[in-house]
C-alpha cells in the first residue's frame, strides 16, 4: 500500500516511518529545505510542498492512503525561513490552505483513506479557553474534512503532549536538562501544573491503525492527566544523582515576589515572565484520558525513552 506521508521529518514522522509494517511503502513529501537526513536511509521521497498544489498533485500519483502531518507550529524549527515567530498568514497558508491542497489532490487521486494529525486543543471535546493561531488553523484544517464532500474516508488524530526518542529539534529538552542539572528540584526549576504525556510510538501506531480503520471522526491519543510534580519525580528518578523533588509552599505568591525583588534591586537579571508557575499541557477531559486504538506505552516509558535518547545524543 503506497502511503504518502507529509511532515515525515517531524517528531512523530521520524518515529512513524520506522514503524511502518512491510506491507506499506511510505513515500515522504519533502521540500528543498527538509531535513531528509532525519529520515530512515531506505525511505522513498518525493519533492513537493503542501503549499504548492501542483507538486502535491504530482506526488499523489499511485498513492493509496495519506498521512498528513505537515504543519507549522509555534517556534517551528523546521526551516531556516521559519524561525521563532510565525506570522498568522504563514499559519493559514500552511495549516489550512496546505491541508486543502492535500485533500483536493487526494480526492483527485482517488485515495482510500487520509489520516490527519491535529492537536489536543483542536479536539471537539476539549474546551480550550485561549486558542492560539496554531490551534485555530489546525482546527480549521480538520474542518475541511467535514465541510467538503470527499469520497475518501478519514480519521483526525489528536495526540496530547508527545514524548519519546528522536526529538531532533529539542523541543522537550528543557525539563530534562533542568532535572539532570539540579540536585534539588523545586519550582521554578520544574513547572507546576498538569500534563498529559503520550508515547510517540503509541501515536505512530494509532496513525497506522486508523489508516486501515478509518472512522470519519476525531480521536484523542492520550495518556493520563498527571500532576507535573509526578513528571518531575519521574525525571528525578532517571537522574544519576539522588535528586529531590519538592513543592514550595505559597509558590504562587512568595516565589514570584522574591524573583521580582531580586530583579528589581539588581541582584540578578531575572526575567519573571520565564517563570511559568502553572502550566497545563495537553490536558484532556477525563473521558478522553488514556485513549488509543492500539496497546499503549506508558507515560513513564515515554519519559524514560526521551531521557535515554538525550543521553545517546550527548545532551544528558
Amino acid at each position, binding site marked *: 500500500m503506497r502511503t504518502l506521508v507529509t511532515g515525515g521529518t517531524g517528531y512523530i514522522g521520524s518515529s512513524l516511518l520506522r514503524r511502518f509494517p512491510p506491507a506499506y511503502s511510505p513515500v515522504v513529501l519533502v521540500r528543498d529545505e527538509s531535513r531528509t537526513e532525519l529520515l530512515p536511509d531506505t525511505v522513498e521521497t518525493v519533492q513537493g510542498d503542501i503549499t504548492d498544489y501542483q507538486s502535491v498533485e504530482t506526488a499523489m500519483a499511485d498513492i493509496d492512503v495519506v498521512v498528513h502531518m505537515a504543519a507549522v507550529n509555534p517556534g517551528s524549527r523546521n526551516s531556516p525561513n521559519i524561525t521563532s515567530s510565525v506570522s498568522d498568514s504563514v499559519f493559514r497558508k500552511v495549516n489550512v490552505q496546505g491541508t486543502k491542497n492535500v485533500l483536493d489532490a487526494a480526492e483527485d487521486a482517488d485515495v482510500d483513506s487520509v489520516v490527519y494529525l491535529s492537536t489536543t486543543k483542536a479536539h471537539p471535546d476539549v474546551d480550550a479557553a485561549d486558542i492560539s493561531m496554531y490551534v485555530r488553523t489546525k482546527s480549521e484544517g480538520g474542518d475541511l474534512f467535514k465541510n467538503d464532500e470527499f469520497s475518501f474516508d478519514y480519521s483526525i488524530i489528536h495526540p496530547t503532549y508527545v514524548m519519546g526518542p528522536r526529538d531532533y529539534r529539542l523541543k522537550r529538552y528543557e525539563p530534562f536538562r533542568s532535572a539532570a542539572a539540579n540536585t534539588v528540584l523545586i519550582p521554578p526549576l520544574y513547572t507546576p501544573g498538569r500534563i498529559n504525556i503520550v508515547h510517540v510510538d503509541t501515536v505512530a501506531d494509532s496513525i497506522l491503525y486508523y489508516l486501515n480503520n478509518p472512522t470519519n471522526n476525531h480521536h484523542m491519543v492520550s495518556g493520563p492527566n498527571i500532576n507535573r510534580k509526578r513528571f518531575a519525580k519521574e525525571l528525578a528518578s532517571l537522574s544519576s544523582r539522588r535528586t529531590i523533588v519538592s513543592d514550595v509552599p505559597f509558590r504562587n505568591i512568595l516565589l514570584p515576589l522574591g524573583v521580582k525583588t531580586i530583579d528589581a534591586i539588581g541582584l540578578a537579571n531575572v526575567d519573571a515572565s520565564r517563570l511559568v508557575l502553572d502550566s497545563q499541557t495537553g490536558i484532556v477531559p477525563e473521558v478522553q484520558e488514556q485513549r488509543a486504538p492500539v496497546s499503549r506505552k506508558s507515560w513513564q516509558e515515554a519519559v524514560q525513552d526521551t531521557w535515554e535518547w538525550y543521553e*545517546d545524543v550527548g545532551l544528558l
Partner: protein
Amino acid sequence: MGLFGSTGLRAGVIGTGSVAETAHIPAYLNHPKTTLAAVAELDEGRRESVVSEYDIGSGYRDGKQMLEEENLDLVSICTPAGTHRDLFLAAAKAGCHIYCEKPLTTSIESAERMAEAAAEADVITQIGYTRAYVENYQAVLAMKAHHLLGDIKRVRVHRVRSPPAGGWNFDPEMSGGGVVADQLGHILDFYIRVFDTAPDVKSVTLERLDIPNVEDYAEITLEFDGVPVELLLHWTPYAKHHRNLLVSTRGLLEFNLESLNGQIQGETVAQKYGKQPFVDLRGEFRAWWGGSNDFHDARVTDFIDHVLEDNYDTVAPIQRGVEVTQIIADIYNRSELQ
C-alpha cells in the same frame, strides 16, 4: 581460565616519563587481565624507582632487548617521537601488539614503514590520540552523528599552553617539530572524526618566538569538505588556554578537555567532564561538584580490551597515525618558518 591463561597478557612499557606514569603503567597494573611484566628506561635512577614503586617484574635500559627477552603480548611506546620507528619495528617483529604514543614519528616515510611492519606482523595497533575518549568531545561527536548541529560552518581551535617539560620536544631530530608536531595530532584526529574526511591545508604560518630550534607559534587554516577550521597553537610559559569554538547552522558549542558549553537549537548545553551541574538555576547560577578526566585510563584499557578480543579496529590504528603524520608533513612543507 581465559584465552591467555590465568596470568593474562604480558605487557611492557618503553619509556617511563609522564605519559607512561599517567596512562600506561596504571592501566596495565589495574586491568584484571594484564600483568606489567617489564619496563624499559634509559635513565637508571628513574628506571629503578619506577620498577620498585610499581613492583614491576624487570627493568631494562634497552627497549629492544626487553622485546627480545620478555615474550610480551603487548607494549606501549612512550619515548620521544624520534625513537618510535625503530622500537615500533622491533615490537612488530617480536609479534607484540603496540600502543604508540603521539607523535607517531618524525617523517611520513617512517610512518608508512611502521604501518607496513604492523600489517606484516599482523599486530593490533593504537596511536595515542586522546580526544575520542574525552567526554566533551564524545558528546560533540554524538550530537553531530544525530544531526543536532545541522551543518558545521566554521571551527576555531586555540591551544595555548606551557612548553612541554620533556626537553626532547625542542630537538627537531627527536620531535619532528615544535608545537605543531606536539599538539596537532589530537586536533586532526578529532576533526577527521567530526567531518569523516581528511582536510586540505589552506594556509600555514609558523614562527619561532622564544624557542630557537622549533616553531612555538602556529596559525593554520584547514578545510574539511569546504568548512574552514582555523587553528592557533602556541607554547607560552605559564599560559593555559584551550578552546574549540564550533559554529553550526543550529547553534554554537565551545569546548575543551574540561567543559562543554553552548546553545543548540536554542537549548542550553552546559557540561563539565560529561556531567551536568548539581545546581543550575536556569542559567543564572550554575555549579558543579567534583569531576575529572579519566580518558588516559580509558584509552589504554580500551586498547587492552581490543587485544583481548582480537579486534584490530581500535579507535586510532596505525593507518590513522599515517594519515595524521601526512597532514603534519604537508603543513611543515608548506610553511616558511619565520
